[in-house]
């Protein structure tokens, strides 16, 4: 749909010109002498005003620096502020409650059954843990764990009975607290590390996987661990435990925060950061998407994963813990692990359950 051209008017006849700004450019409507004069004048003006600039002559041999857009931003904040407050000690592995016999008929579980659908907050861009496969289906380690809970409630796995809602890391808590039906979820299974602070805002299950914060670097970069990255930009997700670890780490890396972890891979591929620091599960997924990268470094910080439900929903969390007990024992956990993370992270055993009560 090309824009139709308007026939040019009898510009040659027109002598007077308006004093409009851009008239210098519209030479064609003027007499030849005026054209020459204006051309001379604007050439001089251009040379004076925009020399070396985009509108002017291009300097031979110049290599202008191209600034690529940033997928995230450097997180500023005092690195020493956080640890001095000293979070109250708690045993993150033993914050949940024993499953009991009547959990399946608890109000929380019956409500989900009545609704006909379990709503789960997941990641949609974390390769191997929670992502959309080529046919548009949610898949990955966390997603399969969530489907086990669905099966326990409804008796089978059917896409009709489970609804996945993509949440950002920062949204994992708010989605459990909100009343907005368009955002609310029953539970979050999204590489959600159990911490003492978070356990005051949401209710965690027993630990279903122990991840560790490690590093993803380019294979030829020479970086071996976080100590090598003092003063270097290291990417992590805003609102994650990883970015807090980076802010406090003794070698003082520069934390670079993004909304979604895949943005970290973009930043690494564009040379905007030197490393990505997060859970080894997620790094394994990123490494799968770029064979030039490798997961390296010490296991900096343990990241026990739990399924989270809204605060105080003990009925649902006891039921979920029951499901986790079952799949630990019947080999289902091993099967799920082998199909997703196992090929990258090697064989592992499910973590043993511990409870607060």
């Amino acid at each position: 749909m090309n824009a139709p051209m308007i026939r040019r008017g009898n510009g040659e006849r027109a002598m007077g010109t308006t004093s409009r700004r851009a008239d210098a450019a519209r030479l064609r409507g003027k007499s030849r002498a005026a054209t020459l004069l204006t051309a001379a004048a604007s050439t001089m003006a251009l040379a004076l005003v925009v020399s070396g600039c985009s509108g002017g002559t291009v300097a031979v041999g110049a290599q202008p620096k191209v600034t690529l857009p940033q997928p995230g931003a450097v997180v500023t904040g005092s690195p020493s502020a956080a640890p001095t407050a000293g979070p109250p000690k708690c045993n993150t592995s033993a914050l949940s409650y024993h499953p009991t016999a009547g959990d399946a008929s608890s109000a929380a579980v019956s409500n989900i059954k009545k609704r006909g659908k379990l709503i789960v907050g997941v990641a949609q861009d974390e390769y191997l843990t929670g992502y959309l496969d080529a046919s548009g289906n949610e898949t990955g380690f966390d997603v399969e764990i969530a489907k086990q809970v669905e099966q326990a409630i409804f008796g089978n796995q059917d896409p009709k009975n489970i609804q996945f809602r993509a949440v950002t890391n920062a949204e994992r808590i708010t989605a459990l607290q909100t009343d907005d039906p368009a955002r609310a979820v029953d539970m979050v299974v999204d590489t959600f590390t159990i911490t003492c602070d978070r356990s005051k805002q949401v209710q965690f299950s027993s630990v279903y996987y122990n991840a560790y914060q490690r590093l993803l670097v380019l294979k030829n970069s020479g970086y071996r661990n976080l100590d090598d990255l003092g003063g270097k930009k290291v990417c992590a997700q805003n609102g994650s435990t990883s970015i807090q670890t980076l802010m406090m780490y003794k070698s003082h890396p520069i934390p670079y925060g993004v909304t979604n972890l895949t943005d970290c891979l973009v930043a690494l591929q564009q040379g905007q950061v030197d490393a990505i620091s997060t859970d080894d599960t997620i790094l394994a997924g990123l490494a799968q998407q770029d064979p030039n990268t490798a997961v390296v470094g010490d296991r900096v910080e343990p990241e026990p994963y739990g399924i989270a439900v809204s605060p105080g929903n003990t009925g649902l969390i006891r039921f979920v813990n029951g499901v986790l007990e079952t799949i630990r024992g019947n080999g289902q956990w091993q099967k799920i692990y082998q199909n997703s993370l196992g090929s990258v992270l090697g064989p592992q055993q499910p973590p043993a359950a511990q409870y607060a009560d």
Partner: protein
Amino acid sequence: MGACSAVATTTANVSAGMGGTGSSLDPAAQPDPDPPEAVKGRRRLTTPARLWVALIAAVVAFLGIGGACAGTLAARQSAETNAAGTSERLVQNVNELYHALAEADATAATALLVGPVPPTRLTDLYNSDINQAVTALSTASRELAGDSTASALLSNVAGQLPLYTGYIATAQANNRLGFPVSGAYLHEASNLMQGQILKEVRSVADEESAAQRSGQSDVSGFPIWILVAAVLAAVVLVLAGRELSRSTRRRFNSGIVVGATIALFVVIWSLVATSSAGNAANRAQADFDKVATTLWDRDSLALADSYQSLTLVDRGADNGTDAQNQAKALGDVDSAALKGDAAALYSKLKQQLANVRSASDNGDYYAAVELIVGHDTKASPNTASADAADLDKALVKTFNADQATYTSDANAAESSLSGGLWGGLIGGVLAALAAAYGVNRRLAEYR
């Protein structure tokens, strides 16, 4: 306008000059510098000298009228030519650039939704959009070469466009492998497009719209300088006529009368021409507003499409900003101005997008994608993207109709003014010749 001030100063100079000549004939007045004496000296001018003064004053007055009319009409014609021939065409061009880029972004996002292998229909559309954008960009850059603000903006766009297509290509490559990082690259591309490129294009378009507007208002303003020249000339002619009737004992000088008649005709003709051109320019301005509304509606719809697809690519992992942006873009469409098919298609599209929204809110991702683009590689008639294409066609039709009206009104304004330069100049010269001839006949009596 310059012509008129020239009338006043030239007349003054001429009188002074003539006074000087008169004084040389009467040496008594020459050495006395006192103003009252100078006035006395002028009164003591000989009759032929006074006739000469009247002749030159009348000639200058008539030429002044002719010049003012010619200058005003020619300036307005040129303003109209610029507004309609250059600014408006650039508005279209820059708008097409905006639309092609917004549509390319929407298409790229939609193609990723479909699956690892994008349908040929969508890749073709994307390629054609980028091609159209580059053509529009190079045309606009050429035409706006002298405008440093617009040039700098377009040069930024030209620099960012390859980055954009690079991001899209990386997203496509990763998508073929089924890697989620493709969504991140798509987002980078979209942020660059929505956050920078389209904003830059929009400011160039706004600048050209303002230029078009100012050109039309130059044409429709009141022709004050013609009136000023006419009043000044009338004063000069009355004074000259009085001098002539005193010196020649004739009530009217036939040459001055003929000249004044011609001048009056020229002035009236110029006023009629400017007024009819002004009316046409006002109509053209109203047409332009319609054209601009339609063009921006197309752009807003393309943006809404793009945000809709992004909503599904992100599936909520964007804190809801895609959905907000999409609602804003849809709201920017001036639905009251939509006519005929377009109005119906707009409500259909809005309904379809609401269905998509509720499907994706319910987590039925597959159904949402189906509603937007279908999973088939063939175009399905009942998808949001097909509805959007139909609506776009209807809007292009509206645009073509409004644009034709604009062109004809702008041409009417221009042709009302055509011949103004020569008409004014020839009228002025004829009137001056008549006056010179008439006064010269009286002068001849003294030779």
